[in-house]
């Protein structure tokens, strides 16, 4: 008797789960950026969510050889919002943490946490949302990383879709 009841419950639960899975895969028409992994607060950000952060900009030469003004938010601020071990907490084993940043085309680049932290470097790595005052175009935006001190822009990853913080194992 109780056995039947249990399996009915589990069927209902699985159906609900399936429904959630189906819904979430179709409900992502606005591009979002997810911050996950070794964080206290996983984030799902849309472009509009970045307006509440302090805006920063960099004038840098892009791959086309021309200078452009990229604006957005300091990457470190996003990490702090997600509760990543930055600043005073970036010591000991936390120095073995890295960011795996993935683009929607599958491209991936890696930064160590210390490369981004202002206690370690003066370089402000930018999560850019605009270029010369315009939102980043298809194929480049809505989010792109700008790392001014990288001579080669291969880590200026376009179409950023996720940032995963992890321990090197």
């Amino acid at each position, binding site marked *: 008797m109780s056995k039947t009841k249990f399996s009915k419950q589990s069927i209902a639960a699985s159906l609900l789960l399936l429904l959630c899975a189906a819904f979430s*895969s*179709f*409900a*992502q*028409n606005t*591009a979002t950026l997810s911050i996950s992994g070794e964080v206290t607060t996983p984030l799902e950000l849309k472009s509009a969510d970045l307006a509440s952060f302090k805006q920063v900009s960099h004038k840098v030469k892009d791959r086309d050889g021309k200078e452009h003004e990229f604006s957005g938010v300091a990457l470190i601020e996003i990490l702090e919002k997600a509760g990543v071990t930055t600043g005073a907490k970036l010591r000991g084993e936390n120095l073995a943490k890295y960011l795996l940043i993935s683009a*929607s*085309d*599958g*491209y*991936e680049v890696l930064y160590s946490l210390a490369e981004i932290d202002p206690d370690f470097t003066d370089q402000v790595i930018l999560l850019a949302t605009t270029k010369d005052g315009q939102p980043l175009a*298809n*194929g*480049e935006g809505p989010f792109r990383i700008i790392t001014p001190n990288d001579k080669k822009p291969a880590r200026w990853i*376009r*179409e950023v879709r996720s940032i995963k913080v992890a321990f090197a194992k």
Partner: protein
Amino acid sequence: MKNFLKTVLTNRPGWLKVSLVCAVFISCGLIQSFRAKNAEPYVLQYPANFGSRFVIPEGNPITKEGIYLGRLLFYEKALSANNNISCESCHQQKLAFTDGKAFSTGTDGSLTARNSMSLANLLWVRNFFWDGRSPGLEDQAKFPLTDPHEMGQPLSESARKLNNTTLYPPLFAKAFCSSVITEDQILKALSQFERTLISAGSNYDRYLAGNYQPTAQQFRGMQLFESGPDPKSGIRGANCGHCHGGVKTFKELFHNNGLDSVATDIGREQFTGQSTDRARFRVPTLRNIMLTAPYMHDGRFSTIEQVLDHYNAHIQQSPTLSAFLQDISNDPGGKNLALTKDEKADLTAFLGMLTDSLFTTNPAFSNPHPVLNP
């Protein structure tokens, strides 16, 4: 004690059943770990320059018994609803595990939606299928086995059919320690076999190892393949390496390569739900590319020359067209690659260096069943 046993046996049959079931589960678990240790581990062989960025699932270590079983299953027609096709039907070894057709014919005679992909070097692939919808081989195998346009048989039915053979139960018992063949074990064995399909014996590999001297034409083709055009510096290039660079000749990328201005197949968008992914498809390996015609996700090009012509002069604009295929030219200010006829021939010569006849004739990958009508 006698009284206690009597009580358990007579008055508490439910309690006894539970303990018996527990005992069976525990001993099965013990046997499983014991057998798994006894199955002979297999060490994958591949050149160091391929790197080791791959994951073998913890629950499916590669063993000699598992690989052999997977190989038998790969060539097993009983896994299709009408017992008429196997994995091999669309993935023939001599064609680097493709089938030479734009679309493949399924068990019921209907056609697949996309072109059959080569199975070389799947060990390093992280997102399977043209749209990357599957994150691992064990998961991937479910699709062709059950899709009505492919083998069209529920996994439960496949397991039932195999359980009723004399051939398979002892082989599964050896590989996975189980008296009953399960759906998962079928997927695991197939994956083990597929992980061994490593193509690293081409002239290109020999060249990289310092054991092959390319012809002048092959060498020119290689230079073009690897270089991006830079007319200001007088560097001519085809920029293939941007997506197909590195020793594996693919990067884990999804791009709209400008086949259509309005796509009939929306590609990766179907899986991600993101309109920015429209008509994006997997960047496939170019290993054995001269054997794997026709080309593209829909097999629209029957020759490599047509493929080169496409990239050279017929890229179609659309909102999701890859940025790496736009405004790139060997002519200053040019709108397309503008490679010459000779340069395209050079590229073709280089692509020929990627043919690996050791791979396409390796007896370890061939049909292990006795063939009645060769």
